[in-house]
């Protein structure tokens, strides 16, 4: 995995499906995509259902509860939407990076540090300025902190060719510890014995949508991921990043400044992860406690692959995942299955996807 090689990580399959098919085969292509996407989901549901049967639980009841809580009940679906906000932002960041051939696995560190800084800053700013300005400033700072936390891996990658998988993983380990140090030693709320930052009052958080409990973070997330999708697929800048990602040598041949684009990719990707941290704090949590680390990025990575780096498909998968995590918790409680079961479902889903994709490749190879 030396240099700027991107196909080197073996993402060939994902890359190949990015290009739109010819007009003639568009419908067949679309049908194939639907089968390719729904196939693994159904397969995963069946396999997970078998596991539930082994555990002595009625799979239909379990899935019923998942759907009821995650999708149908008003508060449940609102929770699903709220959960989507930061996940969408992380997904957006990953799409930028992955399409540009950069394997940014440091999203969790970028997310967490941004969250801590935002949680420390926003309550301090709140009494000084109007709410909208506080929110705007905090979002901006969050994005900047996230981006800053990727600077070292970015420079090492762009100018030294150091593999970004190691460096971003390391920065996450460091970031998690560093976030704790910040909370415990520097940003601690002096009015409570609990090691946590000050709390941003509910009234000062991101506005909720209409009369619901849905945080407007989901709007930021949707705007971001659609914007990313549009930028990556419809603009010159996005095309440049994709050229670097798909064939770095072609990028050099076409006269693109590959190191600069690499650094920009990191900044954007990590900035979006940082924005996710800010949105989670400003929209939901209001503060950060020591040792808090939801590790969203690690679970979003496979989702983004599942979506083949497509923004809209990512929205769908993030939605599916949110339904699963909100509804799964409720379903687990009602059916008496431990909550851990959701992890197994996600894993089975990913493996099923991989197998489906392989079969599809073989089918296409045989069809030639």
């Amino acid at each position, binding site marked *: 995995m030396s240099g700027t090689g991107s196909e080197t990580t073996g993402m060939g399959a994902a890359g*190949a499906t990015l290009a739109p098919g*010819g007009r003639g085969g568009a419908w067949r292509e679309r049908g194939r995509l639907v089968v390719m996407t729904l196939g693994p989901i159904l397969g995963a549901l069946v396999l997970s259902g078998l596991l539930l049967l082994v555990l002595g639980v009625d799979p239909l009841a379990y899935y019923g509860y998942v759907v009821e809580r995650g999708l149908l009940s008003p508060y449940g679906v609102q929770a699903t939407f709220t959960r989507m906000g930061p996940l969408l932002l992380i997904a957006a960041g990953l799409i930028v990076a992955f399409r540009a051939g950069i394997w940014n696995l440091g999203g969790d560190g970028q997310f967490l540090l941004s969250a801590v800084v935002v949680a420390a800053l926003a309550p301090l700013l709140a009494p000084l300025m109007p709410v909208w300005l506080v929110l705007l400033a905090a979002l901006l700072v969050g994005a900047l902190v996230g981006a800053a936390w990727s600077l070292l891996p970015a420079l090492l990658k762009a100018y030294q060719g150091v593999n970004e998988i190691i460096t971003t993983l390391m920065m996450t380990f460091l970031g998690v510890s560093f976030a704790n140090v910040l909370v415990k030693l520097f940003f601690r709320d002096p009015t409570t014995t609990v090691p946590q930052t000050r709390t941003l009052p509910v009234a000062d958080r991101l506005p909720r949508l209409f009369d619901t409990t849905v945080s407007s973070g989901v709007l930021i997330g949707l705007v971001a991921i659609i914007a990313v999708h549009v930028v990556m697929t*419809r603009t010159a800048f996005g095309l440049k990043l994709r050229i670097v990602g798909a064939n770095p040598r*072609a990028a050099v041949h076409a006269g693109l*400044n590959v190191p600069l684009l690499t650094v920009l990719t990191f900044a954007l990707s990590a900035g979006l992860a940082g924005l996710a941290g800010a949105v989670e704090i400003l929209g939901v949590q209001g503060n950060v406690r020591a040792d808090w680390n939801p590790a969203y990025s690690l679970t979003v990575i496979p989702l983004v692959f599942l979506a083949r780096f497509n923004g809209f498909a990512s929205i769908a998968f993030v939605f599916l995942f949110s339904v699963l995590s909100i509804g799964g918790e409720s379903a687990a409680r009602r059916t008496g299955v431990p909550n851990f079961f959701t992890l197994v479902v996600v894993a089975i889903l990913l493996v099923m996807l991989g197998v489906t994709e392989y079969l599809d490749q073989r089918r296409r190879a045989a069809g030639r």
Partner: protein
Amino acid sequence: MTEPAPSPEAASGPPPSSGAIVTLDHVTKRFPGVVANDRVAFDLFPGEVHVLLGENGAGKSTLVGMLSGLQTPDEGGILIDGREASISSPARALELGIGTVFQHSMLVPSLSVVDNMALGGSWWSRPDRTGIAARMAAVAADIGVRIDPHARVGTLSLGEQQQVEIVRALMRGSRVLILDEATAMLTPKGAEDLGALMRRLTALGIAVVFITHKLNEALAFGHRITVLRLGRKVGEIAPERLEALGPAAATAEIIRLMFGTGDRKAAAEGGARAVRRRVSAPPLLEIEELAVDDMAVPVSGVTLSVAPGEIVGLAGIDGNGQKQFAEALAGQRRLAAGTIRLGGEAVERLDVGGRRARGLSYVTDDRLGEGTVGSFPVSLNLLLKQVGKDPFWRNGFERPEPIAAHAERLVGAYDVRTPGISTPIGKLSGGNIQKALLARELTGDTRAVIFAKPTYGLDVQNIRATRQRIREAADRGLAVILISTDLEEVLELSDRIAVMSRGHVVGMVDNDDAARARVGELMSGVGA
């Protein structure tokens, strides 16, 4: 090796009284876009050096790939000792006693020379490093090379690496030895020693497949010669006939087979200009003392000027610095020294985009590797070097209509056969990808173009079309540098011909009647 005289041994090679060790029974191998081997029949007899000749992309290495287990034929069969066999893997090939020196290094750079030689033993055994080193020294002495057995391969030059591979193949004691351009990096003396060794091996009944671009070597070492052209076998010269012909006639015969009946064909098609008009305009592209640092082939002291409407051919065996030179000229590589002026303006400090904006285009020979992004549609590949430019992008946003219109226009004008402009370009055949590249590089305000091996791997029709484009470009007043390993092509198109060897321009020849012989000499290193 100044005299391409067949050696006595070659002349009196053992007759193929025994049957062939290996027979390729009309094998066909296709790659996306090319038929690399088209129903090729090939017999390899013990005690013979069987030379494979053919221009770049003729399918020689593909044939070797099938013999050595790297590729399996799409059609046709392989017979070993007259029995149907399948060479399903390199391990199987080695088992069958087929040892290969591949064209592209098959050494692990991070391992030492002995460790590379040891690769392949049973898992838990210790590599016998001292034993290997000793045997290696003996074999190396045989062919007159010296190799430090404990040097890391990555620290060796490409030439030394090739020596290592030859020694490794010899040490395996194979009954079939395949050398794919094994002499490309050897000194003339080294090559001669290798030839002597081959003679000794064949005397022991070993069969050798020997691939080279140097005809003198082929005649000196070979017993039997097979010529490939565009994936097809176009001729075989059996030992008796080779002997009967003598060197001069054999050379003529081979050249005729390899390149077709160059002049006659070109004349018949009315493509080639009988005499190029002399170009009197002042040079448009001036290159002075250009030098490039490179691990493999450093380039230095290249001085060249091209007038508008002039085609300067750059001939030479592949890998003699042409690539480095072209990339430096286009702005993809840093110059170590020298100046480049385009229409009087110094451009050597500009990047690729800057040079292109001033009218310098580069048609790369590496179509899929760097020329295109295979998974992207044809339409975007046609604009790969203009991303963000008006009118295709406005405020950074893609404008589908102008992009589509531009693509439709070029696809039509250059006759790119594609299902549609949104088809991923990687799915097109080699010739059509090349047409798209030409379309991209020749459109717009181009003033000077570098063509790198523009017809490499193409079929006859595409070659003709491409050459026509190059001529038209010059006729439009563009300054053209034509880099090609195909002598016929250079002779057909160029006004003047420079020959490149080991990173230097070793000669510049006007394209007159004497050019063919002169350039051929320079290229083969005969008259260098």
